[in-house]
């Protein structure tokens, strides 16, 4: 009987596990315990059960932040995919300067969203912004003035800036998807008499499903934890109108409500879990 020697080579994954365990998994688990206390970050913590969670749902600001976060995430996900797909369809044809156009459209996505927020702040700030004056000089005063002054206009601006910045990213993924569709499929449909609209919905879209799923899921999850662009463009204002849950977590933490802020993080975690589980379900169904 051969004695099976311990395979040391399998432990080569230990360094990665160690880093991930200490700096990600441990704080994640620690946060669960912390969310059940009234800890202020300095003194001793007292177990308060679910009080933080109950407080959260009784705080109008917190409920509003959930709404802001969801509106931002859904608005961004829908528009990023529509715009990204349109760009990809446009770029999936032959013309001169195509590769330059692709680089230019992708360019905004490499810049820090925080810096992007500042740039758009310079453009849109009522009274001083560049576009504000450009539109005034063009004789279009109706187009200016209300940006960022109310909840709905500020939300629109945030979503549009996010879409402007990252539609190049969704475009690249849709382009890769479009290029993997064999052209025979479309040709065959053409011979069978399908017009281009029918070919798009019956051939292209079904074949693009993997790319659509990747894009929708990454966009929703990414936008649910939105932080940078709001910090620089509106700072969550006017008032707390455009504050996202991530920003609320940070502010509660700095406001010495450490236990409470980890409870909010748990709530955000469960919100993010929904699209994650749906996408896993969809992937499994496909397999």
């Amino acid at each position, binding site marked *: 009987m051969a004695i099976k020697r311990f395979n040391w080579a399998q432990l080569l994954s230990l360094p990665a596990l160690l880093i991930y365990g200490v700096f990600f998994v441990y704080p994640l688990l620690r946060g669960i315990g912390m969310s059940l206390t009234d800890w202020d970050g300095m003194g001793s913590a007292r177990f308060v059960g679910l009080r933080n969670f109950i407080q959260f749902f009784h705080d109008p600001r917190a409920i509003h932040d959930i709404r802001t976060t969801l509106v931002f995430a859904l608005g961004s996900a829908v528009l990023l995919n529509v715009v990204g797909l349109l760009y990809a369809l446009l770029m999936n044809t032959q013309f001169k300067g195509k590769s330059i156009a692709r*680089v230019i459209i992708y360019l905004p996505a490499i810049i820090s*969203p925080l*810096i992007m927020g500042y740039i758009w702040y310079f453009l849109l700030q009522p009274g*001083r912004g560049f576009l504000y004056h450009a539109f005034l000089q063009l004789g279009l005063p109706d187009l200016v003035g209300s940006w960022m002054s109310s909840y709905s206009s500020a939300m629109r601006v945030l979503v549009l800036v996010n879409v402007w910045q990252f539609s190049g990213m969704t475009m690249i993924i849709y382009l890769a998807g479009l290029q993997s569709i064999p052209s025979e499929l479309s040709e065959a449909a053409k011979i069978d008499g399908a017009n281009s609209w029918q070919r798009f919905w019956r051939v292209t879209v079904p074949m693009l499903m993997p790319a659509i799923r990747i894009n929708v899921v990454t966009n929703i999850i990414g936008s649910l934890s939105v932080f940078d662009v709001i910090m620089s463009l509106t700072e969550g204002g006017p008032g707390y109108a455009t504050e996202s849950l991530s920003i609320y977590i940070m502010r509660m933490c700095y406001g010495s409500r450490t236990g409470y802020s980890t409870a909010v993080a748990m709530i955000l975690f469960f919100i993010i879990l929904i699209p*994650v589980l749906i996408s896993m379900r969809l992937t499994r169904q496909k397999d």
Partner: protein
Amino acid sequence: MKEKTGVKAARILVVVLICLACLMPFYILLVLSLNAPSRVFYEGNLFVPDFYWQNYVDAWNKSRIGTAMLNSALITAGTLTITIVSGGLAGYAIARHPGKFNGFVFGLLIGCMMIPGIINTVPLYVLMRKLHAINTIWGMVCVCSALAMPSAVFIYTTFIRAQPKELDEAAALDGCTPFMTFWKIIFPIIRPATASFVILNGFGIWNNYAQACFFLQSRDKQNIPQALSVFFQQFAGARWHLMAATAVIAIIPVVIIFLVFQKQFIKGLSDGAMKG
């Protein structure tokens, strides 16, 4: 079948308009950064700046953006090195020596892949304080490495699984230890995996703000986004010419790197995304 010229011209027009929309904010940032402090905004031609280069000198001297760039470079280089080496090793172990242990490691990393950093930032802050890792480059490197680790392990595992096992067997016959087999044989031939990983994560580490604003608050340890946000808050919305010049300095390195590597970049992005 030839397309109609009208359709083609319309398409090119649309593409040009989209490109202009993408470049316009950058151009205006440049204009703002070159306007003299005394310029009254709504006088003269909006699109032609004063070419007041002194802004860049002032911005560089007042904003600490130079230190911040060095810090960002150190954090990015350190994080990429750690995640490539440990993530590559883990990918090798998972692909070549599967078992209960590595099944657990892979499941844990992939299971947590979608959880954004903000979820555990507050308890992490407490841990970092205990480790005296706040306001240190190495502390930030550890945080960023953990955040990028699932992506590294996933990419390396996928690529190494696609390599023929005969490579390992031949190396073992020649007396290579598993570590040497990975380092001398596997790692060099999966360079596309490393490229893919760097492309998908490099800019994100360089641009990190959500963690930096917790862990890098001291003036000489700030990374670029944190330095910018501190600098901008200091002026509370005034002195746009200096803020714009600082922003231009801050984005020049990423734009140059992107333009130099754009071919590999677009390719790596499409490859990496479709594998995920």
